[in-house]
C-alpha cells in the first residue's frame, strides 16, 4: 500500500460523493494501529447512482478503461464482491455491496475519521470487530482480539 496513492483514491471517493465505508486492515490503521496491508476494502451503498459515482471516482485517479467492467448489474446482482486491481498492480481495491447474510451497508456503524488532512468514512471499531472475529484467517482473529482490548468490546 502506498500512503499517497490511497489518499488520492479516498479524496476522489469523497469529492464524487460516493456512499462508502472502509473496513478491513485500512480501517484498523485509521482507528490507530499501523499495520501492513495490500488492499483497500470498501463497502458501498447498493444503488445504481452510487456505483456510477464510484466509477467516476476511480477514473479520476486511474486512466483505465477496465473500470467500465465494474457494473451495477454485477454488484447489485450475482457478484457482490468485486476486486479492482489498478494498472500498476501494486495493491487492490475490494468493493462489496453485501457480506453474506451478516452485513449490508445499512447494518454498518460508520464513523468519520481523519486520514492525514482528509476526513473519510470508516466502520466503527465495534463493527470492525464483528466483521473480523468469526473469520477463518488467523490475522483477522488477532486483529479482532486487539480491537476488543483497545476499545473494551464485549465478547459476543
Amino acid at each position, binding site marked *: 500500500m*502506498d500512503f499517497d496513492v490511497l489518499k488520492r483514491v479516498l479524496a476522489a471517493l469523497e469529492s464524487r460523493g460516493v456512499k462508502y465505508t472502509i473496513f478491513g486492515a485500512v480501517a484498523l490503521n485509521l482507528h490507530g494501529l*499501523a499495520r*501492513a496491508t495490500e488492499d483497500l476494502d470498501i463497502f458501498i451503498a447498493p444503488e445504481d447512482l452510487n456505483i456510477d459515482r464510484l466509477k467516476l471516482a476511480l477514473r479520476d485517479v486511474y486512466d483505465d478503461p477496465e473500470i467500465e467492467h465494474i457494473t451495477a448489474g454485477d454488484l447489485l446482482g450475482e*457478484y457482490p*464482491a468485486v*476486486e479492482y*486491481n489498478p494498472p500498476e498492480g501494486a495493491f487492490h481495491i475490494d468493493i462489496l455491496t453485501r457480506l*453474506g447474510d451478516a452485513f449490508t451497508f445499512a447494518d454498518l456503524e460508520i464513523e468519520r475519521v481523519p486520514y492525514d488532512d482528509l476526513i473519510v468514512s470508516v466502520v466503527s471499531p465495534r463493527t470492525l470487530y464483528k466483521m473480523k472475529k468469526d473469520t477463518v484467517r488467523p490475522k483477522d482473529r488477532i486483529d479482532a482480539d*486487539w480491537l476488543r482490548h483497545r476499545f473494551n468490546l464485549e465478547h459476543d
Partner: protein
Amino acid sequence: MPVRKFRSIEEMKRDHPIWRRPGDPLLYRAMALVWEVARRTNPRRFPPGVHKYRSIQEMDRAQAQVLAEHIAALRRQRQGE
C-alpha cells in the same frame, strides 16, 4: 522500534501493539513507514483489471491462491540465487 520476538501467537497477542489516536500525525507517519517497508521487502504485482466474485469467501479463496503462487515464485527465485 526494536525487534520483538515471540514464542507463539498467544504470547504475541498478550503483548499489545502500539495504538495511536486517529488524527495524531505520528499515526500517519507510522502507517506510511510500515506500508513502505512492506512494499520494499515484499513487492507484489496483482493481475490488473476487474475480478468478480459471488461472495467474499470466493474472493478470499482466489486471493489466497494468488498469494500462494507469489510465495512459491519467491521460493523458486531464492533457491535459484
